[in-house]
């Protein structure tokens, strides 16, 4: 017999990986984020980005937006496992390329350099709703909102224009039109 030296079965075929955005409504209580994140790490799911804040102070509800990759089976498991958590009220998920959903990330760029460089940097950022939040003779802080890959690209391009510091958020999402997440 062939020697599989393990008491466990060998891994089966791997399915295709998709990127999904998962939105979770939870009670805003101590440890709730740890429960959600712990579920991901404990079961070997992956988190690409994470955004969380209270959205309803009256009902004490926070909204967590998680970008993750996985096979359709894994995504389904993530949803079902999240729904089992006691403080979780509602879970929604959609594919990253879903046309019915908007999602955005925000980034802050600190650019240090002469006028020309800073101007060039600002110009490059223009199409992503650029806002200048701070300005000195040598530096500026630019805020943009864009997609993940656009921010990735900007971060790369701004390097030669004096980018010294980058801070960015996880993605947040919302449906287009009058519909809300079920």
């Amino acid at each position, binding site marked *: *017999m062939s*020697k*599989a*030296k*393990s*008491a*466990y*079965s*060998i891994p*089966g*075929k791997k399915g295709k990986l998709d990127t999904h955005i998962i939105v979770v409504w939870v009670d805003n209580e*101590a*440890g709730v984020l*740890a*429960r959600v994140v*712990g579920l991901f790490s*404990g079961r070997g799911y992956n988190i690409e980005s994470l955004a969380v804040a209270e959205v309803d102070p009256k009902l004490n509800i926070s909204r967590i937006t998680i970008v993750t990759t996985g096979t359709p*089976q894994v995504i*389904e*498991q993530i949803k*079902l*496992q999240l*729904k*089992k*958590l*006691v403080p979780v009220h509602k879970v929604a998920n959609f594919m990253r390329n879903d046309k019915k959903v908007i999602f955005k990330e925000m980034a802050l760029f600190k650019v240090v350099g002469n006028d020309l460089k800073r101007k060039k940097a600002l110009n490059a950022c223009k199409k992503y709703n650029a806002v200048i939040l701070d300005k000195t003779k040598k530096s500026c802080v630019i805020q943009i909102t864009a997609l993940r890959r656009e921010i990735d690209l900007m971060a790369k391009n701004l390097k030669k224009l004096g980018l010294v510091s980058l801070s960015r958020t996880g993605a947040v999402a919302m449906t287009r039109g009058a519909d809300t997440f079920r």
Partner: protein
Amino acid sequence: MSKLYSGAEIVFKCLEDQGVDTIFGYPGGAVLPIYDELKNFSSVKHFLVRHEQGAGHAAEGYARSSGKPGVALVTSGPGATNIVTALTDAYMDSVPIVCISGQVPTHLIGTDAFQEADTTGITRPCTKHNWLVKDVKNLAKTIHRAFEVATTGRPGPVLIDIPKDVQFQKTNYTKYKKLKKLNGKAKNNFSQSEIDELIKLMSNSSKPIFYTGGGVINSGPKASALLRELVYATGFPITSTLQGLGAFPGNDNQFVGMLGMHGTYEANNAMHDCDLMINVGARFDDRITGKIDEFSPKSKKVHIDIDPSSINKNVKVDLPIIGDVSEVINATLRSIKKKKLNFTKSNKQKISKWWEKIEKWRSIRSLDYINSEETIKPQYAVQRLYELTKDKDTFITTEVGQHQMWAAQHYKFDKPNRWMTSGGLGTMGYGLPAAIGVQVAHPNKLVIDIAGEASVLMTMQEMSTAVQYSLPIKIFILNNEYMGMVRQWQELLHDKNYSESYTAALPDFVKLAEAYGCVGMKATTPEELDDKIIEMLNTERPVIFDCRVDKVENCFPMIPSGKPHNQMLLGPSDKKEKKITGKGKILV
């Protein structure tokens, strides 16, 4: 103004309102206020264990054998970390446990205080939910919620961490009224059309099988009764997982034995070749499925489970039915009776060829072993134990390893809640404290822990508990001086390199028993075995029975790693088997 109660009093008020009469625990600094109140609540009896893990497993044994939640009370820091194994075990096997732990006073939390541990952090992944109660006003609400979470839906362990200052603080207590409504996470979510679809699949199938699991037991005795009715009505074969044993009588002809890694030849082959698999409260665990890509390739799969996240987790199914087992089976039976009065007859005809095939597999007698007159074969010991106890209402617990599988194979259960074993987590040392919990729940019944000598030494200290409370548990040790299952894997897969699997300095179990103040016994030959077992059964005190068995016996049949169900290893080869086993049946 109504009377004010301290947090410690509220703990007991809540336990009383929940109908809890038994707790297992161990005192310590951070739970002293609760222990101080114990004397004032005579309806709650406390059992002092010798290690917090023992409290957890005893609570598990209590819960599994009685259907009520088990309650454990431990102190902060090491008390809480010691019970983590038992909580994880309960989580894997869906056992309702409520664990109350003490915590350092709130103003000291986060300061690395004496016996401080982040208990809710540590137990977060091994409980259904846990709470740190920082305000006494929330205490009663939290405890009642904890019981609700533990016992509804798919049951499981919960933990409530109570800082010492909260135990002293005072507040009002209003009597708890049990809500009829189920926890929002545990609805019966199936429709009549799904039941109709199931019945359609059942009447069209020519090679069906029921694959039942612990969910049937967890759904209560009614679920087992309904399952029997359904299985008899259909005439289908039925197999069971380790945890489901007892839901259907083990000696009934329609029962084809346990399935999985050490399941019977007929059960595993039937699972592989069937055209309809009806999973009732089981979870397609890796010890059941073997190689997942080749798991039952030709079948339509139905999965009845109360936990939606069990559906399609490991195996893709065609018809998921989310609901409580007894509700689903009840609905199915009702529909069968209403629509197809002759379902039974027409079906039995249709599947008679299937039964012929199963009988052929069965004739291989895969559980057989070569008996000996000189040494006690472990299988023989379990068989004799079964024969000599089957007329009593016997409760069996086990440790983990070869003896556990032999017990599952050769002890035939015919009632639910009689079989307590650590399946999911595979916790060595489970059986002895679990037996204590079972005996507490059933004071006048016979409770036997079928044990291995290595496992039982992990929680041996709990014999002291058994003696203290005069709990006449019987520890039946199949002693082969090896960690048998480890030794078996080393023999089969690691070139007989028996690395650290032999215990060279075992205690004398008879003297050990005497040291604990219970009864020690020993059997070394098959000849004396029966008499010794009878003597054990007639002893009204706790017994440690050292049954010296064959040191190198292996547990067969067996699905080797990474193989599908139809490629089983059968027992020590004999000629008859070689003829019957065809292509792909590898013999050792």
